[in-house]
């Protein structure tokens, strides 16, 4: 479920806040899906938790965030299709990365 999603548009920049809701959290398979999706967009995409900020197009950085179930992630994008990027990534997180639980 998407909680507290905010979309700010300011000259090709967008951001949104999402909560990891699948049981296994941001594990390797989920991280790969996120990274593959983010890599499709021409804009720069970053994902951060409370402490770290990682480039969403690189799987090692995203795995480092250790996003367990319930972690609040902020997705930011700068450049072309920024809003679309944030929207689609948010949707992926909300849909539990395509997993059952």
């Amino acid at each position, binding site marked *: 479920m998407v909680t507290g999603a905010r979309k700010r548009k300011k000259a090709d920049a967008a951001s949104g806040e999402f909560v990891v809701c699948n049981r296994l959290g941001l594990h390797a398979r989920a991280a790969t899906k996120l990274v593959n999706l983010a*890599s499709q967009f021409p804009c*720069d995409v*970053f994902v*951060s938790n409370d*402490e*770290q*900020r*990682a*480039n969403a*197009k*690189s*799987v*090692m*950085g995203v*795995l*480092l965030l250790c996003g367990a179930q319930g972690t609040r992630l902020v997705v930011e994008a700068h450049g072309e299709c920024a809003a679309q990027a944030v929207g689609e990534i948010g949707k992926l997180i909300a849909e539990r990365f395509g997993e059952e639980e």
Partner: protein
Amino acid sequence: MTVDDVAGSSGPPTITVRRLLDELRGRLDVRLAAGDGGLGREIAHARIQKSGLSMLGHRHGVVPSRVQVLGETEMSYARSLGREEQNQAADHLFSMNLACVLVTCGAEPPQAFLDGAQRSATPLLVCQERSSTAITSLHTLLDECLAPRASMHGVLVDIFEIGVLLLGPSGIGKSEIALELVMRGHRLVADDMVEFDYRPPGMVFGQAAELLRHHIEVRGLGILNIKDLYGVTSVRDRKRVDLVVQLEFWNEKSVYERVGVDDTYYEILSVPIREVCLPVRPGRNVGSIIEIAARNELLRQAGHHSAREFVRRVEGGLSNHESTSEMRAIRLPEPPESTAPPPVRWRKPK
């Protein structure tokens, strides 16, 4: 140019006296003599203060969040005082809400000081070592704990002991370049996420996040462990950042450095680090170019600036009045005659 997308901690870093004491126990023979109620107080400064005059009531310049050190001189003064004056000195010292006080040389603080510390909940530590040793240990420890930190997306490699930070958009090939450099015998420090910390004077060190150490991501292959694949000489845990390489996709309209006389700098944690900008295009061996950039940086550190020396020779030839119609061929000066005796070949005694 400054770092825009660096994630750093908000506000200056601090350390509690409790944690300082824990860390100090491994380095000094130190104990807590009084004031355990104040172990939660915070130290915010990496340098100590030795302001014995505060015992006389002269508090000017005393910063409570700095560790206060009382050495042989200060304690011998305190011991020379009468009971009443000792109480006064203790009052002066312990009414400043100090984070912590360290007494060195194993001196036993006077009772008035112990009482004052306990009353004001100011941690009073005593160590056996002399002031100079204790202060050096404290400074090293505080530098480690309070170092400003930041992290960013990039790749850090050690090429000929030059720390080269590769920056650029995703997919440009930073990890692949690092892999090629490892295959040439250089060392990977961090892939994807580099954590920086500042050390005085003016140095920035980079290392990989604990979880990612020795790993590299290669699209199509996945995550590889470079240390397992190439051995211990292919990785390095920590390296000072000496050169920043900005990679970008070749752009017709961009202007790239052609002569290289002027230096540009990239700032990390307020430290300017020399920067070069390299265009990436299929067929262009960027790994080799980066290796040469590192060699050039070594040369610069030794005092030679190739581009500037070249330009100086060219401009020297241009301003030469003897030749007006054509540029004279530039002749390098002969190396000076060596005045040292020729080297003696050492012969192994029979």
